[in-house]
């Protein structure tokens, strides 16, 4: 059996991030909420995603800066847990994700009379992500080539195709699933990738999980000797 050849190759891009300081800071939940309502969406992206690459060896905990600060600095464990549990993967846009974060905090504040204040020096600093995307030169036309290249690319490349292209560039699907389904006629594999919750893996764990799915598929399509 000849391996399926995609009409157009999958070109791996990567994304690199420069952190822009906004000068905004919050010492309690009221200030935190106020800023969350008004910061650019790219700030929401930064605080819900940079942990994945920057602290990738620590995932699945802590999941995002917002939950981490609320839990560990303000010691509002109940709210921290709810923020950590926000299912980022289900939100089609950063504005939807922002609405959910704001909604969870709003709801919590309705029941709180007194606000805890962060100790001096441990305020929350809002930061922005400036994303640079660029082609890496890695590309694949077959599933085997795709697996080979996936082993070599950086975490930034995996993050770009799984998170960034969907939330920041506005695609309706992750890039891997779209190519697998449209160009390689692998709808089941595409669905398997789509079904992953990438926020619950380390970046290396995510790479291995993707490779595992592909190898399983290759095992069933590989020509017999």
């Amino acid at each position, binding site marked *: 059996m000849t391996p399926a050849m995609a009409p157009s190759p999958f070109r791996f891009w990567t994304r690199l991030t420069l952190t822009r300081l906004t000068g905004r800071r919050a010492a309690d939940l009221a200030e935190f909420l106020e800023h969350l309502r008004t910061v650019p969406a790219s700030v929401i992206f930064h605080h819900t995603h940079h942990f994945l690459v920057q602290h990738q060896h620590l995932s699945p905990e802590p999941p995002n800066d917002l939950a981490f600060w609320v839990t560990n600095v303000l010691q509002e464990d109940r709210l921290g847990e709810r923020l950590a549990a926000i299912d980022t993967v289900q939100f089609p846009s950063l504005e939807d994700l922002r609405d959910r974060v704001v909604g969870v905090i709003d709801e919590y504040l309705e029941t709180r009379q007194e606000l805890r204040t962060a100790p001096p020096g441990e305020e929350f600093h809002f930061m922005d992500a*400036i994303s640079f995307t660029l082609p890496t030169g890695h590309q694949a036309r077959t599933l085997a080539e795709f697996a080979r290249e996936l082993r070599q690319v950086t975490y930034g490349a995996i993050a770009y195709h799984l998170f960034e292209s969907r939330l920041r560039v506005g695609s309706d699907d992750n890039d891997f699933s779209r190519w697998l389904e449209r160009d390689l006629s692998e709808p089941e594999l595409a669905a398997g990738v789509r079904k992953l919750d990438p926020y619950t893996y380390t970046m290396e764990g995510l790479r291995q999980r993707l490779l595992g799915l592909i190898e399983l598929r290759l095992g069933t399509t590989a020509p017999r000797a």
Partner: protein
Amino acid sequence: MTAGLDAYAPFVGRATIEELRLLGERLRGRRVQHINSTAVGGGVAEILNRLVPLLLELGINTRWDVIRGGDEFYAVTKAIHNALHGQPVTLSEHDVAVYRETTEQNLRTLALSDDIVFIHDPQPAGLIAGRAPGSHWIWRCHIDLSAPVPSVWEFLRPTVERYDAAVFSAPQFSRTLPIDQVLIAPSIDPLADKNRELDARTIESIVTSLGLDPGRPLVTQVSRFDRLKDPLGVIEAYRLAKKYNDCQLLLVGGSATDDPEGQAVLTECRDRAADDRDIHVVELPPTANIEINAVQRASTVLVQKSLREGFGLTVAEALWKAKPVIAGAVGGIPLQITHKYSGVLTHTIEGTAYWIKQLLNAPDFARHLGENGREHVRHNFLLTRHLRDYMLLFLYLGHLGQSVITLD
């Protein structure tokens, strides 16, 4: 001969080096001029010594110039430095005149025609007056600006506002400014003598030569003898822990002969340690990089109990050696340590003592912290990340204000 970019691949992976080359291709031929106030000594010169050759290797036409100034100028800039760090210092009219006059002299002698001019710290900041049309200027602040003396900051602020972007090492150092501010942490070089791998024999020989017992637990703080590093607090914390745990304490730092206050702190430490032969207060020359490396590797626990800190790169150095670190939650330290994941953050002497005991008694947990710490440094505080961020900043100058930038 210094190591080239490929020498870093074993630490960060081949793909990361490839990414650096991809960025370099997009900046090829661009002329970048770094300007600071000293060619030797200090963290800025140390990092430029490594970064400039790597930027050149990547095809970026990089040069590094140093401003010239007399003793009076450097006394003024030292005062500015201290005031920006929050010490109660004011500038006289004469001080301002000295600063401006030296800036004028340097404007007459330095060629400022490069595409990007990268100014480090306040000393050369005034050179922005010589900006060529079409060039981009960056001000890199290595100082903790979280609580500057207002009058001194107000003196500097109008100058900083003329730049295209300012770079800070920690988010709390940023100010309200009408220009872009970015976060670029400093870094350590895994190939430098202070950080490279050492064999067990070298480590043991150095530790023994310092009078330490390599067979017993060792708690160490590596820092200048400076009150803001709280060495006396470390001695107190050690004494509290020592009631329950056998251990030695090493306070080791650079020579303090040219710093009267440092000399006084060193004497106080020695006095405080006099009745305990397990406390070792050691002064080493600034070139003793391998010795510092060895004692960090030989330590069971490393402490950085700073009360105020710029970035605190000794923390990254310790984490890179996969050591459990207990550090004050100040300056850039919280960027390097996530409490109970990649180290321990403390606020008090008692808290430091508590964690010394915990880590001495729970070696598996201590090892786990150290391993997480090393990975955190690998991804965030090695020289290659620093190089990447500088190149991204250079590229950003062509896209000011944008959040998603496509580099086809």
